C-alpha cells in the first residue's frame, strides 16, 4: 500500500498504522520511490495536516529507514550543498528541500544528503504547524481587530469611567487574583495545540485550579497570581514586576514591543494582547501618549503591576500563562471588554482571556499548552479538544479548534468531601529542576504524527486512563487515583517519552516508597517532564508528616545530584487548596487603594529621593495611606524594614564572599595571571578575537582524496583484529576520557558535570556518561583478561564531584584501573568585546527564528551589546557564581596535563607495557577499545590516528581537510570562510589513538623524563606555543530570584587537540568509523533519534554493566 494512503485513508485502521510497520522490509529503491511520491503529495495536498504528516513521514524515512540501506552503497559520505544550508538557516525549508533533491538527482542519495533532507522536512512540518496555530490565534473572534488598528485615533477601547474617578485623593486600583492550574490526568501532552487541532478526540485533561502556599513561608494557601491596574496622572505606561524586581516607565510605543529589553516582557505582552496597545500599532510611528489619551483622556497613563508571590519558575503549574491571563483579564476589565468589572469572569470572558493569553505567549516568543490558562476558570473542569464547525475559522483547515472546550465539574459531580479528600492526601512539590521542555514537546508531536507503534498504543492507553481517574476523583478514592497516576507515569508516559523521568525523580520516589510503604499512594508528574512540579499522594493521616519529610528527601537528593542534574533552585513543598473562583477581581478605593507590599519595596527608594513637593498630589496621598497601612499590616510593615536594609550600608555581603571564593578557586587551579593579562591586552587590542581565529583568506581548503581515509566499516581485517587483540591482551592500551566539561549545550549553560549526568536508562536504571565509558572498559577487561587502565581528565568544575561519586560507587569495581587526571590549567572568563559579539551575530550565518522570536532576539542582542559596553569589554567576568566565571582552556591541555600532573607516569609505572592511549570525548559514547581499529592504528605506524565520520547536517565545526594540500583536521572557527565546511565530507569525532613514545619524542621527552616535573613543564610550555589560541564565546547562565535565569555570552580562550594534526613532524592517520561509534551526544533533543536509530543499542552491546 502506498504510504500516502496512510495519510489520506478515511479508515482509522489504515490512518493510524505505524510508519515503521508499513515500510518494514522495503528495499532501497522502493523506499526512494515512496519518498518521491510523498514529496510530490506534500506539494499538492490541500489539507494542512496531510501535508504536515507527509513531511514527518519523509523525515522519518530519511532519518531512520533509508540510512541503514545506504551503507550497502560503496560511497556513503557526501557533501551537503552550502545553498541548502543557507536556506535552512533562513527558515526557507521548502527551498532547502528543492536544492537537496536536485543534489540527490545528480549524485544519488547519500547519508549526508539524507540527514539534511530529514532536517529540512522536520522543520518544514513544525513550521507549518506553528504558522497554522499563529494564524488561528489571529483569527479567533475578538482578537482580529487588534491586528487592524493602525493609528492612535483608531484605538477603539476606552478605560471605564469608574477607574478615572478619584476617591480620597487617589484613583482606584483594580486587583485581579488568579489561580494556577494542575492537570490530574497529565493527558500525555495532548494539550499541545497541534495535537488538539488534529486529534480533538484525543485531547482531554482534568484540570484543577489551585491556590498555593509555600510551606514554611506562607500561612495559608491563596491565589498565587495577582495583577494590579490603576490610572495614573502621567501619560506613560508604568510596568512593575514585583517578583522580578523590575519596573519601567514606557514613553515610546516601540518600547512596548521590545520584549527582551528588560524583564518586563510578560507585562508588555499582556498590554498588547489585551488590546490596550493593539498589535497593529507595532512600527506605526504613532505616539504612546496619543494612544493613552484615546484610552483615558489627556495627561493620563496606566500602571500595571504583577506578582506571583514568590512561586518559582518551572513549577509546571503554568504560573506564567496564568499570570499572563491575570494581567490580560485586568486590562480587559478596565477597558470594558468583559461584562464584569469586578468579581469572577463570565464564560465568554474567560474564553477570550484564554485566547488572548495564547496570543500573548506567541508575542513573547514563549509557548504553552491549551490547558495552561486553566487557572482562569474555577475549580475542577474537563478541558477537551473540540471539532471545528462551519462557524469556526479553523473549519476546513484542521479537524479541531484552536481553543478547547471547558466543562466545569460542579460539586454535584465531585462533592466537597471528595475535593477535600484530594487536598488531604496530595503533596505538591517543586523538585528544583527547571528544564526546557521544548524538545520533549517536539518529540511528542513527531511521534503522534508518525503513529509510532508502541507510542501510539501508549497514547490510547493514556486516554483510557482518563475516565478511571475521573471516577476515582468522584468517589474520593485517592488511593486508586494515586495508583492510576503512578501507572500512567511509569507506563504510557515513559513509553511515549522515556526522558519524562529523571534519575532524581526515581530516587525520590524510591525513597518515599521505602519510608511510607502502603501509605504512599502514588506519584504524579505535572507538565512536560518530571523534576520540577510533582505530586505525591499519601494516606491522609500521614500527609502532614509526609510533606515535612518529603521536603527533606528532596533536598538530600538534590544536594547529592547537584553536579549531575540542572537544578535551578532548592526544592519547595506547597500547601494547596482548590480554587473555586478562577480569576476574580475587586476594585479598591480611597485609603485601601494600595499596590502590593513588594511594589513599595521597589518604588519607595526612588520616591524617597524625590522632593515631596515635586510629587503629584495623588502620590503624596498614596504614601500617606501606605504609612497608615504599614502600622496596621505586617506585610506592609515588613516592606519598611526591608527598605531600611536596602537604604543603609551593610557589612561584607554575598558579593564579597563570592569574590573570595573565586580568588581561592583561581589560586587552587593553576590560574596564570600573567598569561591572562596578556590575553586580555591582545583581546582588547584586537590581536585576537573571533575574526582572528580564521586561517588566512588565501588558504586552500579542499576535501579529502580517495585513500586519505581508511574505511573502517568495511576495511578492517582479521589481521587488524588479531594485532589489536594481542595488544589488549598484553595491557598495552589505556583509555583517556575527557571529562572536564560542563554540559553547556545539554543544559543550556547550567553548569553541571556532564560525566555525571544520568542521561539514559541502561540495564534497568539511569546511567551517567561516565558509567557508560567504564562499562565499555569492563567489557574489554572481561574479554581480554586484563583491565585496561582508564584515565579520566577533570577540571576545576568536575574533579571533586567525579572523585566523590566514584568513591561512593567504589569506582564501579575498577578502582585500580581508574586514574583521575586533574586539570592544571584554568581560565577566567571575560566580558566579550562588542566587535566579537557583532562578528558572531552578523558575520556568521545564524539560524533565523520565527518572526516574533527574531524580534525578541534582536532586542536581546541590543541589550547584550550595551551590557558588554557598560560592564567593560575585555574585563574579567566576575558577576556570577565563581564556578561560572571560570573556564576550561580546551581539550588540547588534557594530554599535557597527564604529563604535568604525573598521571601518565603513574600509569606507566603501574603498567610498563602501556604503549597506546585511546583519547575520546565524554559524549562520544560509542568509542571503545575496538581491537580492529587498534590493530589498524598500530599497522599505520602513525603517532596519532583520528576517527572521523561521514558528515551529516548536524556535524558542524570543521572536519578533515586538505589545507594547502596538507591533510589535517581543521576547526570550524578556523576555516577562512563558513561555506568551506560544506566542501568537507568528514567530521572529527575527537576519538584519537595515541602512541605514547613517539608523542613524547615530539614534545622533546621520553618516558624517563616524566618524573622530572621541571623538564616536563618546560617541554610542554615550548610545545604549546606552536598551537593556535582560539577565542570563543560561551553562553553562561546567571541564576537569580526564584528560579529565574539570564544567559550571557562571555569570552574565553581554548586550544584544540585536533590542531596536533597540523604539525608536520607528527604522523597522523584517519579512519572513517560508523555513526554509532562516532556520534557525539551533545543535546537532549538528540536523545530520541539516538534511541530510535539503534545507536543506544549498539552502545549497550559494547558495555558490561556492574
Amino acid at each position, binding site marked *: 500500500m502506498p504510504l500516502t494512503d496512510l495519510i489520506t485513508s478515511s479508515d482509522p485502521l489504515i490512518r493510524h498504522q505505524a510508519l515503521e510497520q508499513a515500510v518494514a522490509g522495503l528495499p532501497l529503491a522502493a523506499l526512494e520511490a515512496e519518498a518521491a511520491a510523498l514529496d510530490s503529495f506534500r506539494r499538492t495536498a490541500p489539507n494542512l495536516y496531510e501535508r504536515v504528516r507527509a513531511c514527518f513521514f519523509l523525515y522519518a524515512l530519511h532519518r531512520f529507514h533509508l540510512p541503514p540501506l545506504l551503507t550497502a552503497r560503496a560511497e556513503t559520505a557526501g557533501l551537503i550543498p552550502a545553498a541548502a544550508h543557507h536556506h535552512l538557516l533562513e527558515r526557507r525549508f521548502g527551498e532547502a528541500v528543492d536544492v537537496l533533491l536536485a543534489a540527490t538527482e545528480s549524485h544519488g542519495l547519500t547519508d549526508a544528503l539524507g540527514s539534511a533532507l530529514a532536517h529540512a522536512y522536520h522543520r518544514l512540518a513544525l513550521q507549518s504547524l506553528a504558522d497554522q496555530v499563529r494564524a488561528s490565534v489571529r483569527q479567533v473572534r475578538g482578537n482580529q481587530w487588534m491586528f*487592524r488598528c493602525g493609528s492612535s485615533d483608531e*484605538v477603539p477601547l476606552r478605560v471605564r469611567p469608574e477607574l478615572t474617578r478619584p476617591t480620597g485623593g487617589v484613583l482606584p486600583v483594580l486587583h485581579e487574583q488568579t489561580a494556577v492550574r494542575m492537570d490530574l490526568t497529565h493527558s500525555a501532552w495532548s494539550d499541545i495545540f497541534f495535537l488538539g487541532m488534529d486529534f480533538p478526540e484525543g485531547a482531554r485533561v482534568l484540570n484543577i485550579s489551585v491556590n498555593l502556599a509555600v510551606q514554611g513561608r506562607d500561612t495559608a494557601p491563596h491565589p498565587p497570581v495577582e495583577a494590579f491596574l490603576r490610572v495614573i496622572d502621567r501619560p506613560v505606561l508604568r510596568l512593575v514586576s514585583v517578583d522580578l524586581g523590575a519596573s519601567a516607565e514606557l514613553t515610546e510605543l516601540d518600547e512596548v514591543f521590545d520584549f527582551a529589553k528588560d524583564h518586563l516582557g510578560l507585562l508588555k505582552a499582556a498590554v498588547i494582547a489585551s488590546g490596550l496597545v493593539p498589535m497593529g500599532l507595532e512600527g506605526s510611528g504613532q505616539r504612546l501618549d496619543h494612544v493613552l489619551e484615546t484610552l483615558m483622556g489627556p495627561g493620563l497613563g496606566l500602571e500595571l503591576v504583577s506578582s506571583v508571590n514568590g512561586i518559582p519558575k518551572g513549577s509546571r503549574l503554568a504560573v506564567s500563562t496564568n499570570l499572563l491571563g491575570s494581567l490580560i483579564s485586568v486590562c480587559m476589565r478596565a477597558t470594558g471588554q468583559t461584562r464584569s468589572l469586578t468579581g469572577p469572569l463570565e464564560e465568554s470572558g474567560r474564553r477570550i482571556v484564554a485566547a488572548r493569553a495564547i496570543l500573548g505567549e506567541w508575542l513573547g516568543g514563549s509557548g504553552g499548552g491549551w490547558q495552561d490558562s486553566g487557572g482562569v476558570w474555577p475549580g475542577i473542569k474537563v478541558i477537551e479538544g473540540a471539532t471545528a464547525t462551519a462557524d469556526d475559522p479553523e473549519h476546513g483547515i484542521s479537524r479541531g479548534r484552536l481553543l478547547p472546550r471547558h466543562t466545569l465539574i460542579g460539586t454535584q459531580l465531585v462533592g466537597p468531601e471528595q475535593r477535600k479528600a484530594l487536598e488531604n492526601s496530595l503533596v505538591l512539590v517543586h523538585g528544583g529542576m527547571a528544564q526546557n521542555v521544548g524538545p520533549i514537546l517536539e518529540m511528542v508531536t513527531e511521534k503522534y504524527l508518525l503513529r509510532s507503534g508502541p507510542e501510539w498504543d501508549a497514547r490510547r492507553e493514556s486516554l483510557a486512563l482518563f475516565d478511571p481517574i475521573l471516577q476515582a476523583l468522584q468517589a474520593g478514592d485517592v488511593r486508586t487515583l494515586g495508583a492510576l497516576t503512578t501507572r500512567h507515569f511509569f507506563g504510557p508516559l515513559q513509553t511515549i517519552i522515556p526522558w519524562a523521568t529523571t534519575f532524581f525523580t526515581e530516587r525520590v520516589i524510591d525513597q518515599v516508597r521505602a519510608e511510607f510503604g502502603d501509605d504512599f499512594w502514588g506519584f504524579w508528574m505535572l507538565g512536560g517532564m518530571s523534576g520540577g512540579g510533582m505530586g505525591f499522594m499519601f494516606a491522609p493521616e500521614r500527609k502532614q508528616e509526609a510533606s515535612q519529610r518529603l521536603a527533606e528527601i528532596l533536598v538530600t537528593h538534590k544536594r547529592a545530584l547537584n553536579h549531575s542534574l540542572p537544578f535551578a533552585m532548592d526544592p519547595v513543598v506547597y500547601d494547596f487548596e482548590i480554587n473555586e473562583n478562577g480569576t476574580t477581581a475587586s476594585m479598591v478605593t480611597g485609603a485601601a487603594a494600595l499596590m502590593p507590599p513588594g511594589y513599595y519595596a521597589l518604588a519607595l527608594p526612588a520616591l524617597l529621593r524625590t522632593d515631596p513637593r515635586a510629587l503629584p498630589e495623588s502620590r503624596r496621598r498614596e504614601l500617606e495611606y501606605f504609612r497608615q497601612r504599614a502600622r496596621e499590616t505586617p506585610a506592609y510593615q515588613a516592606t519598611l524594614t526591608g527598605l531600611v536594609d536596602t537604604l543603609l550600608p551593610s557589612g561584607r555581603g554575598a558579593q564579597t564572599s563570592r569574590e573570595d571564593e573565586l580568588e581561592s578557586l583561581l589560586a587552587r587551579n593553576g590560574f596564570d595571571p600573567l598569561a591572562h593579562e596578556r590575553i586580555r591586552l591582545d583581546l582588547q587590542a584586537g590581536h585576537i578575537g573571533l575574526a582572528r581565529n580564521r586561517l588566512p583568506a588565501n588558504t586552500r581548503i579542499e576535501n579529502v582524496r580517495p585513500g586519505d581515509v581508511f574505511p573502517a566499516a568495511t576495511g578492517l581485517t582479521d589481521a587488524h583484529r588479531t594485532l589489536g587483540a594481542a595488544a589488549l591482551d598484553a595491557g598495552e592500551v589505556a583509555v583517556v576520557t575527557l571529562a572536564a566539561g560542563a554540559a553547556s549545550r545539554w543544559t543550556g549553560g547550567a553548569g553541571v558535570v556532564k560525566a555525571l549526568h544520568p542521561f539514559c536508562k541502561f540495564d534497568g536504571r539511569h546511567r551517567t556518561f561516565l558509567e557508560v565509558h567504564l562499562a565499555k572498559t569492563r567489557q574489554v577487561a572481561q574479554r581480554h583478561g586484563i583491565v585496561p587502565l582508564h584515565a579520566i581528565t577533570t577540571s576545576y568544575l568536575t574533579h571533586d564531584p567525579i572523585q566523590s561519586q566514584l568513591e561512593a560507587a567504589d569506582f564501579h569495581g575498577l578502582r585500580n584501573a581508574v586514574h583521575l587526571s586533574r586539570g592544571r590549567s584554568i581560565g577566567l572568563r571575560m566580558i566579550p568585546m562588542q566587535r566579537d559579539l557583532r562578528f558572531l551575530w552578523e558575520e556568521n550565518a545564524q539560524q533565523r527564528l520565527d518572526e516574533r522570536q527574531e524580534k525578541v532576539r534582536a532586542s536581546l542582542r541590543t541589550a547584550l551589546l550595551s551590557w558588554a559596553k557598560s560592564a567593560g569589554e575585555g574585563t574579567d567576568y566576575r558577576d556570577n557564581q565563581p564556578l561560572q566565571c571560570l573556564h576550561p582552556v580546551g581539550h588540547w591541555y588534557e594530554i599535557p596535563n597527564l604529563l604535568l600532573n604525573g598521571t601518565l607516569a603513574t600509569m606507566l609505572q603501574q603498567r610498563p607495557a602501556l604503549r597506546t592511549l585511546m583519547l575520546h570525548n565524554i559524549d562520544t559514547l560509542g568509542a571503545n577499545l575496538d581491537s580492529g581499529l587498534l590493530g589498524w592504528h598500530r599497522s599505520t605506524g602513525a603517532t596519532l590516528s583520528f576517527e572521523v565520520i561521514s558528515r551529516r547536517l548536524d556535524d558542524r565545526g570543521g572536519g578533515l581537510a586538505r589545507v594547502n594540500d596538507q591533510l589535517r583536521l581543521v576547526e570550524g572557527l578556523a576555516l577562512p570562510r563558513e561555506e568551506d565546511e560544506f566542501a568537507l565530507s568528514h567530521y572529527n569525532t575527537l576519538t584519537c589513538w595515541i602512541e605514547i613514545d613517539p608523542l613524547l619524542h615530539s614534545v622533546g621527552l621520553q618516558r624517563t623524563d616524566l618524573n622530572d616535573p621541571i623538564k616536563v613543564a618546560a617541554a610542554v610550555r615550548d610545545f604549546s606555543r606552536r598551537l593556535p589560541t582560539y577565542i570563543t564565546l560561551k553562553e553562561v547562565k546567571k541564576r537569580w530570584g526564584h528560579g529565574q535565569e539570564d544567559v550571557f555570552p562571555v569570552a574565553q580562550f581554548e586550544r584544540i587537540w585536533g590542531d596536533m594534526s597540523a604539525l608536520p613532524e607528527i604522523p597522523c592517520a584517519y579512519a572513517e568509523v560508523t555513526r554509532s561509534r562516532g556520534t557525539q551526544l551533545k543535546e537532549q533533543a538528540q536523545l530520541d533519534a539516538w534511541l530510535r536509530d539503534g545507536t543506544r543499542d549498539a552502545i549497550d552491546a559494547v558495555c558490561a554493566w556492574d
Partner: protein
Amino acid sequence: MIPRQAVITAADWKQQFLPLQTMVDRTGQTRKVLGLLLDEITSTGIESIALVVRPGDEPLYRDAVDVAKADVTFITQPEPLGYGHAILCAAPFVKDEPFLLMVSDHVYVSALDGQTCAQQLTAVAREHEGMVSAVQATHESRLASFGAVGGSLFDARHRLYEVQRVLEKPSPTEAEQSLLIPGLRHGYYMCFLGMHVLTPLVLELLAQKQASLPPGHTLDLSSSLHEAAGRTRYLAAALSGRRYDLDHRHGVLMAQLAVALDGDYRDDLLAGLVEMLAQSK
C-alpha cells in the same frame, strides 16, 4: 405602521448646546441644528413632536422651535437618569402608538434626492409593520460612541437586517464576537444613526427596567432594544444617507461641510476648500 409622533431627546448635560449650534443649511440659510432636525421629522408628515430637555432648558430651545414653526411639546427629564429614562419621560406623550425617536446631537444628510433619512426609515416601518432602527456601517474605532446591532440579512436589496442582538457602546472584542453581520467589511459594524421607529413595547420594557434599576445606575435604551428583538421582529435599515455626530472632535465642522456639500452652494464651498488646502502648510 405609520408613526404620527416623534420624540427628540436633548437632556444630556454633555450635549447641552449642540442642538443649538448654528449651521448653514442646504439653501444657504442660517439655522439651528434643532431646526434641521425638526425639518427632518416634519418631512415624514409627523407634526406632533416632543422635545425632552433638562429642567430649566426650555427657554433656550423655544426660539429654535418657534423659528421652525413646528408643534413641539416640551417635556422635562427631572433627573439625569440616562437616555432610556429620557425616552420614558415621553411615554405619556406617545401613549400607545409607534413613534419616531431621534437624538439631538446628530445631523443627517440623505443620499437620495427628495427623500430624507427620516422618510426612508418611516417608509420601512410602514412596509414591514414593525420596529426599525436606522443603522450605518461604522468603523470599529467609533464603537465607543454608539449602540450597535448584530443580526442576519433580511432584505439584501433594501439593505434591511433582522436584529438579533443590540449592545450599547460595545468593545471591539464583544463586537467581533457577537455583532458580525454578513457582507460587511472587516472592522465595520452596524451602529445606530440615532433614529428609530419604536413601538410601545420598548416603553414597556424601559418601564420594567426602570422599576428594577439599582440606585445610582442609569437606564439605557440598547438593553431594552435587545430584549425587544427577542420578542418581536425588529429590523435595522442601512439608509441611503449618513449621520454626522456633532459630539466628536470637529463634529460640528464635519457636519457643516457635509450639509453644505449637499446643498446649493457646493461649488463655492469646494473652491474655497481647494484654495484653503493650497495655501495650508
